[in-house]
């Protein structure tokens, strides 16, 4: 009897999901048919004026770090929260790794790759406003250095190179720096997170030192994300 009940429950749930799928299908169909000269004045403005207004030729960066920088603040807070939760949940104990030991060829190759990763991460961060990339992606690449060290050598070695406390410090400095860069706008008489309006020159679009505060915000986010993800990964590894 309970088995029948189980089957019935499953069918009920499948029916629910399929009904919902139909519902979404009709919704999407209607929306798609509705259109077609949809008013996209906002994105049209960003595309036509964005380069002059922010000085960043990567429009995604200009949206992310200038027009909608407040979103980015919330998002940076998310990573900090996650890193704090993981560091808090995991007891300070002896670490356990995967249990596989790598041959020296792996270790040597990783040693060879690491500088390139560092250069790539730095490049992605510093050139975030002129090419694809930016603080988040670059920060993740930087965190992969610590992660590779953890995987191939051990957590102890990785934490001997960069101490957990130092990572936490870098993360907090990144977050505070982001807010302080935002407050610079207030001090120059404009609004929070202002860039072009607060007379930070946008420079010649396309150069590295242009776009006002955007490269600096990129650096801060990069530090924060890199340190935060390294903390998250090492905490997960250390959890028994």
């Amino acid at each position, binding site marked *: 009897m309970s088995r029948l009940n189980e089957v019935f429950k499953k069918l009920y749930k499948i029916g629910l999901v399929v009904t919902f799928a139909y519902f979404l299908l009709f919704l999407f169909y209607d929306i798609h048919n509705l259109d077609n000269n949809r008013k996209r004045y906002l994105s049209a403005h960003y595309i036509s004026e964005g380069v002059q207004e922010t000085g960043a030729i990567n429009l*995604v*960066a200009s949206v992310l770090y200038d027009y909608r920088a407040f979103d980015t603040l919330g998002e940076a807070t998310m990573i900090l929260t996650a890193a704090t939760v993981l560091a808090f949940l995991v007891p300070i104990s002896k670490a356990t790794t995967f249990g596989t030991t790598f041959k020296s060829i792996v270790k040597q190759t990783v040693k060879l790759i690491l500088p390139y990763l560092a250069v790539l991460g730095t490049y992605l961060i510093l050139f975030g406003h002129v090419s694809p990339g*930016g603080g*988040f*992606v670059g920060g*993740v690449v930087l965190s992969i250095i610590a*992660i590779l060290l953890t995987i191939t050598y051990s957590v102890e070695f990785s934490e001997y190179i960069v101490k957990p406390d130092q990572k936490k410090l870098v993360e907090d400095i990144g977050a505070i720096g982001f807010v302080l860069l935002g407050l610079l706008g207030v001090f120059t008489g404009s609004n929070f997170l202002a860039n072009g309006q607060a007379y930070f020159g946008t420079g010649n679009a396309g150069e590295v030192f242009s776009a006002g505060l955007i490269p600096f915000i990129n650096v801060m986010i990069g530090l924060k994300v890199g340190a935060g993800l390294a903390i998250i990964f090492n905490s997960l590894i250390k959890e028994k």
Partner: protein
Amino acid sequence: MINIVFYLLLLFLIITAFFMVFTKDLSNSVITLPLFGAILVIIFVILQAPGVALAGAIMTAGLTTAFFVITINKTEY
């Protein structure tokens, strides 16, 4: 031409997703996850989103998979 590639990729995306969910062995599904992420990245590149493609390549296909691998390593022994 690019359309056919795009549709094929979508098909593969759905197949990998179904495989990921309905396979019995967790190791199989965790190996399918980077595949899923990689296909998604190519789709993003076709849809002209290089920034998101970079982020997706690193986060979805890379780090999230690593998190899953660690979790399965810690829970099934």
